């Protein structure tokens, strides 16, 4: 099959199989996405980031932990492209290794929070009655809490570590997903196909898992993509307050925090991780913007 005909096949107005239709829809989405140059830029940056994280030990010029007190706070140079920090460690190497931590945090939170939200939201919406009342009241309570302070409290309670920081962020990030999922569930709940499935004898659990969840997922994905940058920034905020990754882990927020003592004379120590955080969260925002155009046609297309 030639390239042209594959394209035709994908874009066919009359797909012959379900598979062809699904692939075709995906391809359509890809075309829309690809047309958005900024979103593509975001995607490229993220692919580079993932590559950097995977290859970190091979591409980092030095160990991220190797100290050299004699060569501390050196400005960017040929030996240290991004300079060295207060303990003489190579900032570039630390940034490269730090990308793993960033991806770990974002990835884990982005997996946990929507799942909690999806579960609570759909159960509340589907069950209705007092279950709905109780679950939504709990969601309200968490929504009314100042987020960073709640995360701080959790980390303080659980002890500072990267794992607990992830948990705390996930625990503070789920309420909006729950609301979204519940709203979606309420609109689907009385749809004909649900009634049909129910008539066929599908149990409540099966209805929830097989019919309701799949329909909520796409709006959740958009929301997650748009939330990624926020998660990165919150994680960096925790790291900045010393409650995220523990030394000597090169977490970017903690690196800024380290660098702020030197910000007046050695700007690069704080600036480099700052730029890294900015670039990555920008990339996630661009990607999210593009994804929304594809997945959520109701939304604001630009």
């Amino acid at each position, binding site marked *: 099959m030639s390239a042209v005909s594959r394209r035709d096949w994908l874009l066919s107005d009359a797909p012959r199989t379900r598979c062809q239709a699904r692939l075709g829809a995906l391809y359509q989405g890809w075309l829309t996405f690809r047309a958005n140059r900024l979103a593509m830029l975001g995607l490229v940056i993220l692919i580079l980031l993932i590559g950097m994280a995977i290859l970190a030990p091979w591409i980092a010029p030095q160990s991220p932990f190797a100290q050299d007190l004699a060569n501390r706070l050196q400005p960017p140079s040929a030996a240290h492209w991004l300079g060295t920090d207060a303990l003489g460690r190579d900032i570039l190497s630390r940034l490269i290794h730090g990308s793993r931590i960033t991806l770990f945090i974002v990835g884990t939170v982005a997996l946990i929070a929507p799942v909690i939200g999806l579960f609570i939201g759909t159960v509340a919406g589907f069950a209705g009655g007092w279950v709905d009342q109780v679950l*939504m*009241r*709990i*969601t*309200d*309570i*968490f*929504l*009314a*809490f*100042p*987020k*960073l*302070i709640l*995360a*701080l*409290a*959790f980390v*303080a*309670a659980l*002890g500072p570590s990267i794992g607990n920081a992830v948990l705390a962020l996930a625990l503070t*990030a789920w*309420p*909006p997903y*729950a*609301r*979204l999922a519940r*709203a979606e569930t309420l609109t689907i709940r009385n749809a004909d196909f649900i009634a049909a499935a129910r008539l066929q004898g599908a149990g409540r659990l099966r209805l929830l898992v097989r019919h309701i969840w799949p329909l909520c997922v796409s709006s959740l994905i958009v*929301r997650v993509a*748009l*939330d*990624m*940058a*926020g998660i990165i*920034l*919150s994680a960096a*905020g925790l790291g*900045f*307050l010393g409650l995220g990754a523990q030394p000597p882990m090169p977490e970017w*927020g903690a690196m*800024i925090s380290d660098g702020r003592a030197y*910000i*007046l004379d050695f*700007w690069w120590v*704080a*600036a480099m991780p*700052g730029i890294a955080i*900015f670039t990555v*969260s*920008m990339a*996630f*925002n*661009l990607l*999210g*913007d593009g994804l*929304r155009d594809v997945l*959520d046609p*109701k939304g*604001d297309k*630009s």
Partner: protein
Amino acid sequence: MSATDTTGAGGTSSGANRPDPDPTGRRALRRRRARSVAGTLLSLALTLVGLLLVTFIIGRVMPIDPVLKVVGDRATQAQYDAAYVAMGLDRPLVVQFVTYIGDVLTGDFGRSISTGQPVAQDIARVFPATVELATLGTLIGVLIGVPLGVIAAARRGGIIDQVARVVALVGYSMPIFWLGLMGLLIFYGMLGWVGGPGRQGIIYDGMVPDVTGMILVDSLLAGDWAAFQDAFSHIILPASLLGYYSLAYISRMTRSFMLEQLSAEYVITARVKGMSEGAVIWRHAFRNIAIPLVTVIALSFGSLLEGSVLTEIIFSWPGLGSYITRALLSGDMNAVLGGTVVIGVCFVVLNLFSDILYRVLDPRSK
């Protein structure tokens, strides 16, 4: 569906330090509340009590020992035990919680162990500082964000739209603590254009009689122009920073609302009738987005109130966010609980406010 519900938020995510850009949840919350006033009040009370309960439990499971903060490093075990009993920590948790709720209802938030003063008095001191900062931040966000959003929608795809989009995306992507540090370095350290960390120049401290606790207001009330200038030079940088985040959110939301209105039939009709573009945009479309816009602004204000922790820390701003954070890290639970109640009440009041506004102003909801 109401106008607020059909729009997607522009380039959004939920950072800790900026407006929750997609208040889907809060909107849904509001919708449900519209059902009955009594039910609303009841659920608000329940939310607050739940909020307190969660905070209370966190405080009790936290491995930070409040007694130690009071007695200090060198205390003997006997002195420690005496303080433990004096603080009422030997009573069962349930008793402690019920006593606390009872006290709060009579306006007694207890005494903070990290400042040694009544929590109510502490909050009366720090909250105005946060309100002042958040208000000015929101003001900046509205004054720039709204026109920017409207123009971006009117000239969709044009240069201003592109600029607005980039401005918003950058705003959503920048770590606020980093931007704050850099801002302080450049505008205070290098250029000397603005005042340094803190709310006032030190020699102005305590000069203006305390009326509202908001120095900008108090200095105007006292007619002290120099103190006002000084306070303004200190607040402008952190407020601009918060204002930028608020601007990013408000401009995107404004743009969304406008786009929706501009594609509505009545706009097309107006255009066909030959109405000028300016009139269409400002007299018709903009007037129609006023209600959802006010809601968005209220939410943005609310999240600046609760979300300025890092900004306050960087600018040595003695506000509520840094007060709660500090209290949390020293196990000062009375202070944390008091601060959380205040923020919870703000959240609830702002929601109620947009609820009422919505019902009063939106003809469709009648």
